[in-house]
């Protein structure tokens, strides 16, 4: 209680604008990361589930590499590992590195989520689609995708939440998102308790809101079944 009593609440209050700036960067990166990982998941998940030549193998290697290396290493690699390619050094803006790395990470997990979802769609539904005159691609779009994406929804929600939380690791490359903002504030003010409590509370609120929102979507989209 002495900790709370000695808290400089005013400090947090004064720096709300800073937190807000950091939070905006976090949300922007997370939104792009989530949107991108959704697109990657659908395309590569379909390639895996339907054994589309070449793309299937590319997707398999991609998933294994991302899932078996730490995301921090991936961030460092995208930020620095590409700058030494002889002749074609790739130097990316911090913002680009930020959304690219969380998108690539989330995309790999989402590829697996959607692969499992598409594979769980019973063949007889796809057959019914084909029999109605849908082409193979149209059968995917109209039958496999809507049913499989619903099956994949609970696990892909976990991935989106992780993408949002993983943006905090971007502080490692000095990208000014929420955690990095807090870290700077702390090193200037020497008020770690105040800063990190405020930081944790902000994440809790934001992540909890995201989870609640997507669970609402999940309930609305769930395949109706007899209970």
């Amino acid at each position, binding site marked *: 209680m002495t900790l709370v009593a000695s808290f400089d609440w005013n400090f947090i209050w004064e720096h709300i604008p800073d937190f807000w700036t950091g939070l905006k960067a976090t949300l922007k990166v997370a939104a792009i990361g989530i949107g991108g990982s959704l697109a990657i998941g659908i395309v590569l998940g379909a390639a895996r589930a339907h054994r589309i030549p070449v793309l299937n193998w590319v997707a398999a290697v991609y998933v294994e590499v991302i899932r078996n290396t730490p995301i921090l290493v991936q961030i460092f690699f995208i930020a620095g590992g590409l700058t030494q390619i002889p002749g074609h050094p790739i130097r990316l803006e911090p913002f680009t590195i930020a959304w690219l790395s969380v998108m690539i990470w989330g995309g790999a997990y989402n590829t697996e989520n959607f692969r499992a979802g598409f594979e769980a769609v019973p063949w007889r539904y796809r057959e019914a689609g084909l*029999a*109605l005159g849908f082409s193979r691609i149209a059968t995917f779009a*109209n039958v496999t995708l809507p049913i499989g994406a619903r099956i994949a929804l609970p696990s892909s929600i976990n991935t989106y939440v992780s993408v949002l939380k993983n943006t905090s690791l971007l502080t490692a490359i000095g990208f000014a998102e929420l955690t990095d903002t807090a870290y700077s504030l702390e090193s200037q003010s020497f008020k770690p308790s105040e800063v990190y409590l405020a930081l944790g509370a902000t994440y809790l609120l934001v992540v909890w809101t995201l989870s609640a929102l997507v669970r609402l979507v999940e309930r609305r989209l769930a395949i109706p079944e007899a209970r």
Partner: protein
Amino acid sequence: MVGHSSGAALAEPEHTTAPVVRLEDVHKSFGDNVVLDGIDLTVNAGQALVIIGPSGSGKSTLLRCVNLLEPVDSGRIFFEGEEITGKGTKVPAVRQRIGIVFQQFNLFPHLRAIDNLTLAARRVGKIPRKEAEQRAQELLERVGLVDKARSYPHQLSGGQQQRIAIARALMMRPHVMLFDEVTSALDPELVGEVLVVMRDLARDGMTMLVVTHEMQFARDVGDQLIFMDEGKIVEQGDPADILDRPKAERTRRFLRRTLQLADSLEELTIEEGGVE
């Protein structure tokens, strides 16, 4: 583009001299297992062909070959005079004109009954939603389920689901309907409602290929009956003739086992009643 008037008629038979479906020496194997062994068959416009036979005799595969869900190994299949087993065949276009109803209904679980009906019409047929829903309502009325338009499949009985599946297949205005043991997964008291819909369809002049174990239906509705065994057509002709006076020994054995030819179970021995 044939017959796209928006009338309520279920069947719109083609005015053509060519048979609707014709199979010419069709062979099909799954690995070493020969499923279709030289099938020749002709179904004319407005005819209801009933296919009976023991399980594994190739009945379902025959239907699935006709709408190209299974490729044939050799032989040719003609649909309204055009070969559809050739290389350049536009498969989705052929399938739009061939309706099929499955044993397991296969309604899309995430869609309401009305949307199950209109999905393909809207997305493949490019029919505006309003027009598609109007036709769907007419078809739901024909199968007696107009009040279930907003229900999801899981809220319907098996018989209701199967009638929705029939209506769904009719949405695309097919020129022939294939029925693959559509009452086999139903509780006994739900069989009748589905068979009545099929009977009415046949009376309206729809060309039909019906794989079934319902001998009463075969007798009442079938114009032609074939008995299949081990991938071959063993016997072919008028349904009542075959069911009452089969010529082939294999047909007789099958019909005795299904109790069509035996007056009571007492007539059968265990060897005769069992599976070989």
